[in-house]
């Protein structure tokens, strides 16, 4: 499903060029549970942004669902982010002053779904993450763990095939963190591809495959026994 070949990401800062990713090639099949890890500055977040179609690669090729990303227009990329990819961020990134329900409805809004369709789906997902009683709460009225669960519900609204989670437990206590990991694991069991960027060893151990980056290069790609 995801196929990356000889990928480079280079930032140009004045005269200097910084190679954030160097010659990365890998493929991820549907239904995998992958951890991407490495020290900070290793390029793992950049890699994830490229996988999420938020950032553009400099050289190489990224094929998502058989189509090269470079061939897609900006509008198509928006549509991909909307329907194929679900993002979960370290800092949750809910829209402030907007209720949990409305936050979860948002991707459906951009998919031009009707109000009733959106509500039905959002309520179903909030129930799935165990927040039926927090539907009308604002993001600042919820704990970190609850907020992240809303974010996961939001990532799932358009039934994406890939969940990209960037340090999803980084801002959470260990109890909430393991709740979140359990939800992600359950999703993976249901067939969703889950890719987690993390620097926590504990989390990589819960994933079936670990990819390690260092200085922009893929240094290790191993299956974990779990």
């Amino acid at each position: 499903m995801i196929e990356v070949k000889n990928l480079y990401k280079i930032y140009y800062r004045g005269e200097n060029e910084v190679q954030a990713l160097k010659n990365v090639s890998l493929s991820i099949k549907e239904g995998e549970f992958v951890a991407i890890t490495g020290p900070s500055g290793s390029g793992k977040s950049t890699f994830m942004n490229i996988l999420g179609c938020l950032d553009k690669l400099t050289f190489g090729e990224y094929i998502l669902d058989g189509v090269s990303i470079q061939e897609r227009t900006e509008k198509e990329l928006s549509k991909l982010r909307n329907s194929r990819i679900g993002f979960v961020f370290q800092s949750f990134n809910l829209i402030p002053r907007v209720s949990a329900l409305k936050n979860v409805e948002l991707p459906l809004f951009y998919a031009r779904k009707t109000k009733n369709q959106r509500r039905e789906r959002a309520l179903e997902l909030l129930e799935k993450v165990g927040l039926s009683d927090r539907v009308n709460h604002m993001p600042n009225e919820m704990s970190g763990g609850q907020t992240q669960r809303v974010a996961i519900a939001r990532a799932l609204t358009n039934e994406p095939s890939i969940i990209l989670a960037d340090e999803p437990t980084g801002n959470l206590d260990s109890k909430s963190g393991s709740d979140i990991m359990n939800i992600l694991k359950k999703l993976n069991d249901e067939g969703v591809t889950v890719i987690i960027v993390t620097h926590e060893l504990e989390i990589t151990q819960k994933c079936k495959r670990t990819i390690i980056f260092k200085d922009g290069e893929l240094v290790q790609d191993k299956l974990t026994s779990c």
Partner: protein
Amino acid sequence: MFLLENFMIAVASLKSNKVRTFLTMLGIIIGISAVITIMTLGEIGKSNISKQFEGVGANKVGIYLNWTSNSVKKDFLTDSDINKIRNVFKNEITYMSPVLMGDMGKAVKKKESGDVIMMGVNPDYKALEKVNVIKGRFLNQSDLDKRRSVSVIDKKLALKLFKRVNVVGETLKVESTNLKQSFTIIGIYEKKPQLFDSIFSKSTSVYIPIVFSNNDNEYDQLQLQISKDSETNLMSKKIIKFIARIKGKENLYIAETAKNQIELINNILGTISTGISIVAGISLLVGGIGIMNIMLVSVTERTKEIGIRKALGASRSDIVLQFLTESMIISAIGGIMGVFIGLSISNIIAILLKASPVVPVWIVLIAVSFSAMVGIGFGIYPANKAAELDPIEALRYD
């Protein structure tokens, strides 16, 4: 459907910053209401002045002595001059009256008094000025021939001095610098309320036989009516030429027609209201810049939100639409409120001036579409700026 929801989202976001939204709107409200007030007042002035002259008639001509430092006594028109004019133009002139506007005076009755202007006229004046006599009668030829000291007074003066309308037969005592005389009241007239009445004229006109106003029978003013509307300008020129011939002097008298006056006043009003409208338009421009400024601030403040929305699948046009909707709501509501306030102010002024109120639809349409244009024009740049944000940069923004 999608647009409606977008609208609701924009409203919610504007509501979350009520004071800021209102202050931004205020620029547009002030701009639009100023434009509307000025333009509507201009329209009210034009339509009321035209109306007033309709009552007077477009075929009316005033002949006035062209006063110069060289003007001498024999330049005045005499009774025999007037008779000559009447004979030569008997088919072209329907009514003619010399007019002598006397000094301001006071009509006194016991403790009450009223400011009056003594107007020496002849019987034709009633038809010329469409004087509406409600009690008694107007002056007639025998009043003039027999030099009767009679007067026709305004209903307002009657009410002021005698506390009633029908005062025919009562005596009116008038005091002015040149004149201290009593007149028998033979008629009461009523005047239609006119534009600017309330400001300028506290005094009323008292019509008396012209023979009383001056004993030499010399006049510097002649009011007359031409039988054919279309010949008004032509005939007034001919009469001026004729007077020049009998008095042996060119350019001694000038003619003023109602048409000339309407055009002149309309031109002046038009120039004034265009001038002020431009100034008001500038304030609208400033209001628009205010919108742009606030929208730019709003884009910066919501950089992260924009990043999130993009990550969730909002396209460029979705973001543009979101911010553009906000700026358009600000300017549209501001515009509507401005129209409302502007129409209220201008029509209250109109009512205070005793002019008939006007709601010029074309001005409202122009103002509303102009404020919508301001909303789009000044909203497009911030909206574009928002849409062009790099999602990664935007997500990292704190």
